[in-house]
């Protein structure tokens, strides 16, 4: 069998080695290849049938018992592809693809690489090969692509230069129509009338749709063939850039650098990230993005009270951009570039991992001062503050407020209180307490303030005195003696 079809090279993992510019188009599994009327050669059973732009490949499946090698049929050797006959019989058995290959005089499939010229009517023998598709696969789609690839004659465009791709396409379409006519004139297939007229009509309809499809996709094909050139061009540019930055010994003049940056920009706009940008301080794109972000984020920052979550900023920025959305990585990179510029914003990461954008002018001390004033209010002394309370007072988001409270706690300003009521913070009294004298309370200082605040919630009633209330640290009294006592109190300087 290996003598009939050409041998195809396979990689160590079983994938076929493609020729230069060869592109895989379609794949079917569970395919038997049977050359008809060729009793000498046993058919290839149950393999993977691959259509490429240049060849038809048959690979043995891994469960093949007898070691068979991969085979290839060059598309150049195919003289005719039979259309799929829709008969009653075809409903019951597996779909088949039949095509005719030219056979060289020595009994092997004609190999265009061997150098001999190809002509359809050269008089060489042709053998019909049937591919029986036993596996699940889109047989009709395969057939359509088969026609396309065969018509495109990609192998011919390779032999000519790159500019020949356009002409190759023209010749391909020309060949299509040419062979369309030639199929019926030179092939020698028996013309049938009556029922066959209907069949022929069907065939013609099929071919006309095929042609219209081809016209429609002409641009796409042109692009695809050009795409290869584009990739080559991009590679060349990249190489040039790399070599350019490598040889810095000659000294960089500004013009060179400017043009290099332009090249980088173009590459980026096409979607190719130049490796140079990753090493350097970032492409112009990222720098521009970073500046734009710094400008944009100023308004939300003011609204949010000087600190905004990175995720919130990302959402707002993308919404403002509308169409050209940026990825989270771009955002992060843009923010980290701020260090190198002189922008009034900075990225900050808290201990808990939360990342925020904040004004450079933002000072933690100021926030702590505000927190302290909040937490020394009598209400807060009694019940502590929750992140929501802090958020309302400070005018920032609750998540930010919690971060601030946690930072203040780590600085020793606050203490936490975890209870079924929730997570609350109190002013830190521990430094004021002397462990050697735990019953001692200084007159002034936060401890006594706390005690006073706590005691006013539970007014003590002593049988000896009237109700005493405390206002600004001074005892006030009620009743007729108040005037005289008040005078007495104010005369007492040490009490204040």
């Amino acid at each position, binding site marked *: 069998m290996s003598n009939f079809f050409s041998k195809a090279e396979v990689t160590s993992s079983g994938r076929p080695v493609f020729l230069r510019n060869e592109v895989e188009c379609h794949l079917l599994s569970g395919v038997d290849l049977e050359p008809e009327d060729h009793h000498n050669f046993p058919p290839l059973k149950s393999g993977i049938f691959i259509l490429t732009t240049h060849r038809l490949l048959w690979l043995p499946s891994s469960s093949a018992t007898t070691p068979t090698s991969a085979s290839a049929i060059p598309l150049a050797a195919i003289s005719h592809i039979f259309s799929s006959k829709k008969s009653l019989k075809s409903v019951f058995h597996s779909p088949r693809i039949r095509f005719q290959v030219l056979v060289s005089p020595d009994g092997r499939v004609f190999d265009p690489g061997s150098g001999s010229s190809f002509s359809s009517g050269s008089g060489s023998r042709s053998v019909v090969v049937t591919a029986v598709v036993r596996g699940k696969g889109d047989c009709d789609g395969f057939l359509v692509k088969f026609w396309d690839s065969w018509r495109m004659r990609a192998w011919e465009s390779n032999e000519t230069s790159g500019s020949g791709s356009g002409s190759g396409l023209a010749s391909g379409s020309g060949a299509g129509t040419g062979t369309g006519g030639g199929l019926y004139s030179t092939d020698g297939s028996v013309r049938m009338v009556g029922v066959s007229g209907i069949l022929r009509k069907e065939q013609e309809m099929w071919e006309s749709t095929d042609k219209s499809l081809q016209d429609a996709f002409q641009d796409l094909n042109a692009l695809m063939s050009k795409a290869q050139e584009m990739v080559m061009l991009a590679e060349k540019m990249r190489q040039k850039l790399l070599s350019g930055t490598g040889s810095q010994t000659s000294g960089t003049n500004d013009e060179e650098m400017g043009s290099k940056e332009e090249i980088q920009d173009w590459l980026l706009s096409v979607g190719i990230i130049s490796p140079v940008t990753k090493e350097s301080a970032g492409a112009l794109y990222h720098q521009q993005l970073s500046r734009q972000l710094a400008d944009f984020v100023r308004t939300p920052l003011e609204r949010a009270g000087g600190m905004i979550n990175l995720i919130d900023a990302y959402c707002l920025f993308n919404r403002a951009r509308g169409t050209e959305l940026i990825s989270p990585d771009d955002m992060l990179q843009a923010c980290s570039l701020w260090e190198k510029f002189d922008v009034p914003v900075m990225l900050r990461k808290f201990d808990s991992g939360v990342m925020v954008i904040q004004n450079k002018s933002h000072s933690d001390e100021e926030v702590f001062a505000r927190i302290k004033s909040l937490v020394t209010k009598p209400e807060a002394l009694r019940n*502590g503050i929750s992140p929501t309370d802090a958020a309302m007072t400070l005018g920032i988001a609750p998540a930010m407020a919690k971060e601030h409270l946690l930072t203040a*706690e*780590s600085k*020793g300003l606050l*203490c*936490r*209180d*975890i*209870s079924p009521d929730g997570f*609350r913070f*109190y002013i*830190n*009294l*521990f*430094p004021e*307490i002397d*462990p050697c004298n*735990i*019953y*001692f*309370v*200084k*007159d002034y200082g936060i*401890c*006594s303030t*706390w*005690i006073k605040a*706590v*005691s006013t919630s*539970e007014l*003590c*009633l*002593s049988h*000896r*005195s*009237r109700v005493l209330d405390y206002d600004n640290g001074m*005892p006030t*009294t009620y009743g007729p*003696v108040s005037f005289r*006592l008040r005078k*007495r*109190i104010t005369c*007492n300087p*040490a*009490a204040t």
Partner: protein
Amino acid sequence: MVIILISSLRFRLEAENFSPISIYCEGSTCREMQKLGDFKLPHFFNYPPYFTLQPVRETREKQVQLWKELILDYCRTQKIFVIKLEEEFPLFSNSVIERTLSHEAREAFLSALAAEGRAEWLDKGHRSCLILWHRIQEWADIIVNFVKDNGFEDSVMTVEEIRFGIESRRTELHGIDRTILMRALKLLEQKGKLAIFKGTSTDDEGIKFSV
């Protein structure tokens, strides 16, 4: 009535002048200085963060220190020798502010005491802790003083007599935990100050002093 009012007020004002103690605690029913039984609680007992194990290192150290002092004081005055973690311990909860020390916090504070040598875990699972508000050596000294003060230098006593006898009633030895007493006695035995011997019943051991 008015005079009493003025004088009580003046007392309060003068108290504010001279004494550093908070003016609300003397005899009033104000709840600042609570009591647990007859034990006076410090004011920070009502401070809710006191009952939450603080994560910040400095704050935690202070908190641990305060709790250690409090536990030792309480146990000393109430003559408590063993604290079981799973049982309710009145010092570990405050019903006024509705806070209780978590199991983790209790273990942390008692472990700190154990590290200092002021407590000992009785089991590996840290469920029960022996509180040594006097160290074993101190207990040994107390026993020696007790013996000397009462003239028992060459006599014999049972362990129960030391614990619950009439003579020990005025001393700190009264009601001492048996484990602690045995340890102290063994320490003294090593020093040769006494000898322990088994009595007629397995419960009661006798001590022969030779101080």
